C-alpha cells in the first residue's frame, strides 16, 4: 500500500514537467518499475488512476518492468534479483527500502554484500507524452 506514496511522486513530478514544458494535456506517462522493490503493479496502476489530475484525464499510464540487476564489486559477478530466494520479512524490508538488499542478499559467487544495484532498483519516471497548445 505504500505504492500510493510512490504514485504521488510520479503524479507530482509529471505535473511539474508538464508545466515546465507547457503541455496542455498529457497523453501518456511511462513508469519503469525495478523488480528489486517488488512493487505491486495493480496497486500502483490503481493509485495512479485515482491520483490523476485534470491535465491527465485521458493519459495512459504504462508500467514497464526492469529486472533487478546486481553486480558484485569484489568478484565482478552479475546476477538478477530473485525474490523467491528471500524470506517474507526480508522481502518486505526490501520492498520499503531496497538498499537493505545489502543486509539480506549477497553475491551468489563470492558471498559478498558489497555489490552494486546496476538497474531495477525502484520506481522511475521514464517519459511523458503530451500536447502543446500550438500542436
Amino acid at each position, binding site marked *: *500500500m*505504500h505504492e*500510493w*506514496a*510512490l504514485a*504521488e*511522486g*510520479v503524479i*507530482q*513530478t509529471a505535473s*511539474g*514537467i508538464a508545466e515546465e514544458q507547457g503541455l496542455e494535456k498529457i497523453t501518456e506517462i511511462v513508469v*519503469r518499475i525495478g523488480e528489486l522493490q517488488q512493487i505491486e503493479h495493480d496497486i500502483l496502476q490503481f493509485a495512479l488512476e485515482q491520483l490523476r489530475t485534470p491535465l491527465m484525464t485521458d493519459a495512459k499510464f504504462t508500467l514497464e518492468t526492469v529486472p533487478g540487476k546486481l553486480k558484485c564489486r569484489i568478484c565482478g559477478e552479475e546476477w538478477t534479483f530473485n525474490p523467491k530466494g528471500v524470506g517474507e*520479512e526480508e522481502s518486505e*524490508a526490501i520492498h*520499503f*527500502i*531496497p*538498499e*537493505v538488499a*545489502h*543486509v*539480506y542478499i549477497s553475491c551468489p559467487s563470492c558471498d559478498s*554484500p*558489497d555489490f552494486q*544495484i546496476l538497474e531495477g*532498483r*525502484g*520506481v*522511475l*519516471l*521514464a517519459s511523458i507524452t503530451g500536447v502543446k497548445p500550438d500542436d
Partner: protein
Amino acid sequence: MIDPRPGLISRRLEGVDEIIAVSSGKGGVGKSIVASTLALHLAEKGHSVGLLDLDFTSPATHVILGIDGLFPEEEYGILPPVAHGIKYMSITFFALDKPAPLRGADVSDAIIELLAITRWGDLDRLVIDLPPGLGDATLDVIRFVEGIRFLVVTTPSKVAYETVRKQLTLLKRLRVPVIGVVENMARKPSDYVSLNVENDGALYLGAIGYDEGLEESIGDEARLKETKFYAEASKLYSTIN
C-alpha cells in the same frame, strides 16, 4: 529517467513545524543520547514529536530508548509507530539487528526513500539523529530537508573539537542555520569549548557533565528520565528555541 521521490519530501514534511538535526563531525560524542533525550524532553513539554534515526551503520536511538517489537504501518506510505509518545522511524525496522554495509550512494538512496514515504502528519518538532561525519547522510538532509537546523554536539577533547570546528565552517559556508553547540561529557570546568565555539561564530549552549549512572539507564525510558544527564540536558534543551 527521473526520480519521482525528491519532490515528495517537502510534502511529507509540510506538517512539521521545526526540524532539528543532531549532528557532529565526530563520532561517539553523544549525538544519539542527545537526540533521544531531546525528543523525550520535547514530548514531556507537550509537543508532538518525531524522531528519525538516519545512522544506518550504528543506529542507537532504539537501544537508548528501549524500542523493540514495533513496526511501521503501511498506509498510503508508511506510518511511524509511536514509542514513549514519540513518532519513531529508523532503518533498524528494515535491517533488523543485522549489519548494514551500505556505501554512501546507497545510504543516500535509502534516506531519500525514507523521507519520501514516511508520513509524519502534524508535528511540532522532528528530531533527526545523524551518523558522524560530513558524508552522504549529512549532505542529503541539508539538500532535501528545507528549513533544517543543526544542533552540534562535541566533547571537551581537542580531538573532537578540531573536527567540530571544520563542521561549523562547512555549515556556515552552506548557510545552514546552527542552533548552537552542546558540550557533552564535560568532566571539569573548562572554557576550552565555549571560547572556541564563540571564536568560530556559533552559539555555545552549555555543558552536560559525564554521568556515571547513564549506562545503567540505557534502554529504560523511565530510568533515563531520572538520570543526572537528563536533568542537565533538559535544562539546556529548554533554552533552545
